[in-house]
């Protein structure tokens, strides 16, 4: 097989995976945008959501379970916002960062208390046979997952641009003080953002769960989002999407073409190397805004 076709296949594979990285990164971006909190518990939330879903499916069927899980994640989000982050309003972002670590411990521990330590499969009944388009191989389930991720992202964008709450969110992201003076209730919006992040966690948990199963290591998927955040900028939704794709492609191509030169295993490092390149040339990410200080 020639390298061109192989390269195209890897690029497609990378793009499809990349869309799933974007999903995970979105959870971080949402919360950071609205409240400047770097939510390290996003991975634990993903695990919690997915475990809840697969735990409920045998009891009540898929759709009811999905609905219930949305409810549970909403509850978790409201709890986190009320009990942990509201008392910490005004604290340094680093302090809140560590509080999210605490939240991660709580969520991981309780997920395993409620749902046990055993892993589960989550099969959404997607076709798995590969698709060949003109001699180029395309992974069917990845393609469908990517479509689902894209659909979800579009929903989010619509939410931000068309609904009143969404517009309020964007106003807050731009300027907390101004938004408050416009009568937007910060706290209400924060609660909504946490709920949204919980739902993003569930969506990511479903997509990844279908791919790798639902188990404890799922919380580690969040690590995949970190280079995405550097490249896209921590507070940019389009940034997270584009950067997710970039990371996906860089990983695939890096593994395919640079990997053989150094004995393979460069996939994860590629993501960070690309991120460092971006740091050199666009330190605040593709779409992030550099904070110009006035003196």
């Amino acid at each position, binding site marked *: *097989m020639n390298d061109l076709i192989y390269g195209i*296949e890897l690029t497609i594979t990378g793009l499809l995976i990349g869309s799933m990285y974007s999903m995970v990164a979105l959870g971080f971006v949402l919360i950071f945008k609205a409240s400047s909190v770097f939510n390290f518990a996003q991975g634990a939330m993903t695990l919690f959501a997915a475990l809840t879903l697969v735990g409920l499916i045998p009891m009540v069927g898929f759709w009811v379970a999905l609905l219930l899980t949305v409810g549970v994640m909403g509850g978790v989000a409201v709890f986190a916002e009320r009990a942990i982050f509201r008392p910490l309003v005004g604290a*340094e972002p680093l302090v809140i960062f560590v509080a999210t670590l605490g939240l991660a411990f709580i969520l991981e521990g309780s997920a395993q208390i409620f749902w046990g*330590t055993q*892993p*589960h499969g989550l099969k959404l009944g997607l076709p798995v046979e590969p698709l060949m388009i003109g001699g180029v*191989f395309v992974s069917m389930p990845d393609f469908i997952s990517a479509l689902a991720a894209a659909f979800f992202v579009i929903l989010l964008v619509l939410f931000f641009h068309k609904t009143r709450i969404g517009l309020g969110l964007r106003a807050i992201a731009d300027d907390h003080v101004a938004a408050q003076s416009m009568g937007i209730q910060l706290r209400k919006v924060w609660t909504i953002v946490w709920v949204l992040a919980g739902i993003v966690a569930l969506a990511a948990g479903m997509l990844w769960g279908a791919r790798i199963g639902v188990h404890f290591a799922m919380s*580690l998927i969040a690590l995949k989002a970190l280079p995405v955040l550097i490249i896209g900028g921590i507070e940019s939704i389009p940034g997270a999407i584009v950067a997710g794709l970039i990371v996906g492609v860089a990983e695939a191509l890096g593994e395919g073409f640079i990997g053989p030169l150094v004995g393979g295993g460069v996939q994860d490092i590629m993501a960070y190397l690309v991120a460092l390149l971006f740091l050199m040339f666009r330190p605040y990410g593709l779409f992030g805004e550099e904070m110009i200080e006035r003196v």
Partner: protein
Amino acid sequence: MLMRRASIRFSPALATGVLAAGVLATASATLPTQTSIAAEGEIYHPMLVTRTGPFASAASGVSSGQQDYFALVNANGGIDGVKIKWEECEFGYKTPRALECYERFRGKWKIVYPNSTPVIFALSKRLTEDKVLGINLAGGRSESTDGTTFPYLSPVILNFWSQAASTIRYIAQQEGGEAKLKGRKIAFVHLDNAYGRQPFPIFDALAKKFGFEWKSWPLAWPALEQSAAWVDIARRFRADWAIQWNYGQSCNVPMTEMKKVGFPIEKFVGTLWCGSEEDVTPAGDLAKGYVSANYHGVGLDFPVIQEIIKKVHDQGKGNIDRKRVGTVAYNRGVLTGIIIVEAFRNAIKSAGMPLDGKKVRDGFRMIKLDKKRLKELGAEGLLPELVFSATYHGGIEPQLFQRWDGKTWTTISDWVPPYEDVVKSEIKRAAAEYKKQTKQ
């Protein structure tokens, strides 16, 4: 942004709560720890366990399997009347916590089985000093098969090199003999760490010997995303066989990936560390037909397991969810329990109670689990024959191969032995290296 000042009001109630919690925690830590003290004529046996974190799924089965076997021994009146009292120390597969656990029960250990290769490495120096045997079945330090260089370490069954060699022999058997391996391409998918690289010297030696080609695809932990590697294996390298050397939850990822790139699952063999129910269930139907290695029999069809069900679980004294009895991890625990109890038994017989680490080590070296003894124990077919000595701490044994049918594992092969010469020369080389490193 970083240095914003906090303005939190002081809440006396909260403060009291926090301080109370802190005081409670520290106070309980300083109390004479661990309430249970072994009665006269009991064996007090502390255990390192992992019931939290990413590795809890299988590891909890191994711990509970041992405990169920101990419970069975106790139900049968103990080892010649001596009962086993075990105590857990949870370390969550984290090395520093395991070190703390080790110190907490120091002087009380009879035999240490962390079920974690990094932990056995971290403990090895202390174990030798304290004269307590550290075992890690089918893992740990591969060269500790050499009981002379490593008097207090043992892989017990199948060190990593035996596993690798036996897996190649299995592939040769499928191909119809070693001669057919010539020109074959084997893809090796493995975690990008020392564990994942253990088979390298064995594969190199065997590739030279039999003329097959092998290539490595290292994956960074946690290796939950492997698509690029599999596209490469199936589309560019076009492997004839693929072997995976993942661990924990990265084991099931290849199932989906293979299906996506159209690599036949019949040509795929997993390490025995990717051969438990927990490793495949997340992949659901995609794992149907997957073959992995194992070092023991699977299922409930062993007298000893039946006896456990009857005398332990049916009495409501089980240490694990009944549904998990008979799983790979559980059976691993039971056979580990058998080996430990044999070591205890030999130690009591030759050196008498109370036991200590050295006595149990000596008892371990006297273990002779031949066909007859295995039958007596009701464990025929559950584990291979094991005969240890002061120089041989186990490690060169045959593997079984098993296939997953979507619900259960079925053993599909006889015991497949490793290529002993290759494994032995690697043990010799590594033991010498260790001596050099520690300037012995």
